């Protein structure tokens, strides 16, 4: 059940209607847990037991780790990482179409299971739960609250990755009168607009980036499509995160903001404080800092950055392209680091614009490894950007359509905040209304959210 399906709309309406009824006031958490299980099981019911194993297992290790953190915390983390590694990387070693793998029915059954949707996200929630609560030495939470934290449906499939210490205190009775309707609606409408109008329409064009279609492209169109994909992946993931934040607000929960105009970053380190913020702050808190962060000299800092970004790349998928994407981002962070304070000291608008452009172009080029997880295809695409095309019948792309569908991302990044917050404040509801109409009239063909695959 995806956020853009009518089934999801009915599901949310029913759960929302029941959630604030007085008889359910004391059962709100349970209701959300049941709704989240239904949401998850709707598409992959065979994977519900796995979700249960992950939650029950994490809860058990949490109870044990609260008694003896030193022993049980690493085991609890290892349990979750093993789950992630098994499902994410098993197809590196087994052929999915093979009729039998080891000849033992239960193991064959496990090996044949598809990648559970959202596993990368709920495993990170589990680890955050173990680390945060055992660090606080708080009393163990009840099982329902743990369930809700891990499987809360707006964030279950693709985040934002919420830290336990931020989410758990929010679990308490919610009242209809406290719902920030306008704020929630703004998030939800913006999210749907970016997904339906921008991402789905651009996806029609960027499908030409797939192998072997990209071989038919003219050189300038290869360049254009990389930039369109950059806008698409932002609109797609920002859209999903915005819908998740808005939905959570309707149920009385505040999820962390996941994007803050990433393509306006003036450095690579700033980019990672603006793009997929919940993942980068998770990696910083639970990986970079425990590895030593920047506390052991420059060499160790650079090594830590490369390790964190490399693992961050592999978190997205078992492929050389994802590893390369992560490592190249790590490399950019490393080479930028010694010069960052000197660059910051130059106070010039032109220089600032040049830095934003440079960061945007580099980040955009690296999305090729994301779009084409097959490393050879990614390299093939990349090299074709620097050689002239020989195909006599290249596909025609409409540049005016590309511009019109990318425009919301450009306006969001380029227009100053004061334009929206002061000058256009009175027109705000009308603008959201136009977005509603446009997302209906101009919705591109249905495609799943890019981050669902992770």
């Amino acid at each position, binding site marked *: 059940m995806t956020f853009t399906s009518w089934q999801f709309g009915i599901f949310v309406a029913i759960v929302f209607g029941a959630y604030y009824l007085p008889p359910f006031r004391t059962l709100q958490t349970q209701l959300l847990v049941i709704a989240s299980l239904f949401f998850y099981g709707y598409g992959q019911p065979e994977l519900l037991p796995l979700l249960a194993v992950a939650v029950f297992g994490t809860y058990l290790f949490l109870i044990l780790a609260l008694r003896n953190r030193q022993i049980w915390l690493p085991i609890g983390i290892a349990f979750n990482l093993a789950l992630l590694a098994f499902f994410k990387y098993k197809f590196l070693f087994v052929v999915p179409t093979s009729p039998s793998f080891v000849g033992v029915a239960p193991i064959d059954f496990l090996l044949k299971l598809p990648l559970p949707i959202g596993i990368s996200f709920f495993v990170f929630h589990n680890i955050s739960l173990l680390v945060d609560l055992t660090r606080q030495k708080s009393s163990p939470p009840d099982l329902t609250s743990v369930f809700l934290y891990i499987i809360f449906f707006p964030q279950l499939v693709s985040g934002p990755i919420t830290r336990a210490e931020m989410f758990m205190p929010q679990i308490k009775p919610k009242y209809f009168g406290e719902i920030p309707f*306008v704020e929630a609606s703004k998030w939800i409408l913006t999210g749907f607009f970016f997904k339906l109008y921008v991402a789905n329409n651009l996806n*029609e064009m960027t499908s030409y980036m797939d192998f072997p279609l990209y071989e038919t492209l003219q050189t300038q169109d290869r360049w254009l499509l990389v930039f369109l994909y950059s806008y698409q992946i932002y609109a797609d993931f920002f859209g999903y995160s915005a819908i998740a934040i808005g939905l959570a607000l309707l149920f009385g929960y505040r999820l962390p903001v996941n994007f803050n105009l990433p393509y306006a970053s003036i450095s690579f380190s700033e980019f990672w404080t603006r793009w997929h913020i919940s993942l980068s702050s998770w990696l910083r808190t639970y990986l970079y800092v425990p590895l030593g962060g920047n506390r052991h000299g420059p060499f160790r800092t650079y090594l830590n950055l490369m390790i964190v970004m490399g693992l961050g790349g592999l978190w997205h998928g078992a492929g050389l392209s994802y590893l390369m994407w992560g490592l190249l981002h790590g490399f950019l962070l490393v080479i930028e680091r010694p010069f960052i304070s000197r660059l910051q000291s130059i106070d010039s608008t032109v220089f600032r614009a040049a830095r934003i452009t440079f960061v945007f172009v580099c980040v955009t080029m690296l999305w090729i490894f994301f779009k084409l997880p097959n490393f050879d295809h990614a390299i093939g695409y990349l090299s074709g950007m620097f050689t002239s095309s020989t195909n006599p*019948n290249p596909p025609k792309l409409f540049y005016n359509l590309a511009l019109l569908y990318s425009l919301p991302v450009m306006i969001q990044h380029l227009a100053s905040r004061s334009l929206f917050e002061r000058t256009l404040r009175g027109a705000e509801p009308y603008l959201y209304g136009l977005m509603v*109409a446009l997302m209906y*009239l101009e919705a591109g063909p249905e495609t799943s959210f890019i981050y669902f695959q992770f």
Partner: protein
Amino acid sequence: MQRMSVVQWFAKCGFSAVTLLLACGFATAWFGNGLQLPSTTTRDGALITLNRYAKEPIPDVVLVGSSLTFRLKEEYFATPRLRNLALAGGSPVTGLEIVANQPRLPRIVLVEANVLSRPTDTALVERYSRSVDAEPVFFRPIRTAVAAYESWVHAPLSHTQVSFALSRLLAQPPSDFDNRIYADRALQQFNAEDPTLAARMNIKRIEQLIPAVEQRGARVLLFELPYSDQLEDSRSAKITREIVHTKFPDPERWLHIDSTRRELRWADGVHLDERSAVIATQSIERALTSLLGPR
């Protein structure tokens, strides 16, 4: 007070949404869906052609086929009332089904028999088999604006407008473009593919549709566009040819295209280049003359 402002916010939001929807609704009712949407994909390209077919007067001749026939542009033909409904990446059966489901039929339907390995696009068939009442209520404002601009800048050409350019093109020697990379890849693909099952299913459906169409007064002819020598001997081409000729052995069922092979080129290994497409078009027209009678 706070609640009131929330209500106001939603009222204003709803007002502008409804206003834009109504504006598009009225514009659609007034102007219709006639503006051709620009294609961002081959499917969109097919929609443009099919929209025209559904809205304009029924032509004398219709071509259905795959991307091979798609290259034979309508303006290459001197025959005035001819439509090419070939679908790039699609099956000839899709086009034939759509033609057969229309209330009125053309005099001649030409069915390309080269590529029969693709399934029928049932969504497309269903869409163009509905009555006119099922047209969308609203047009897409952005695409319509772009369509208007594109129609203004690149209006479709008639045969008269391009005939001089076509004559010049034909006067040139065949292209010497080195297509070895593309040809080898195409051959590899054609040899890897076994179209038996799909081709049998498609041929069975064509066999059912032909009498249904011919009972209503149209004539259906099959035709094969020439492949390069390499591809003619490929596994996929041979299997398809054998299946289709076994089912339709009667030469009367075929439109014979007699173009000089040495003049033809396949720039990407599979599809005729522009000059060759014009040559193939002229061959089809020569064969059609006897069927259509003097114009």
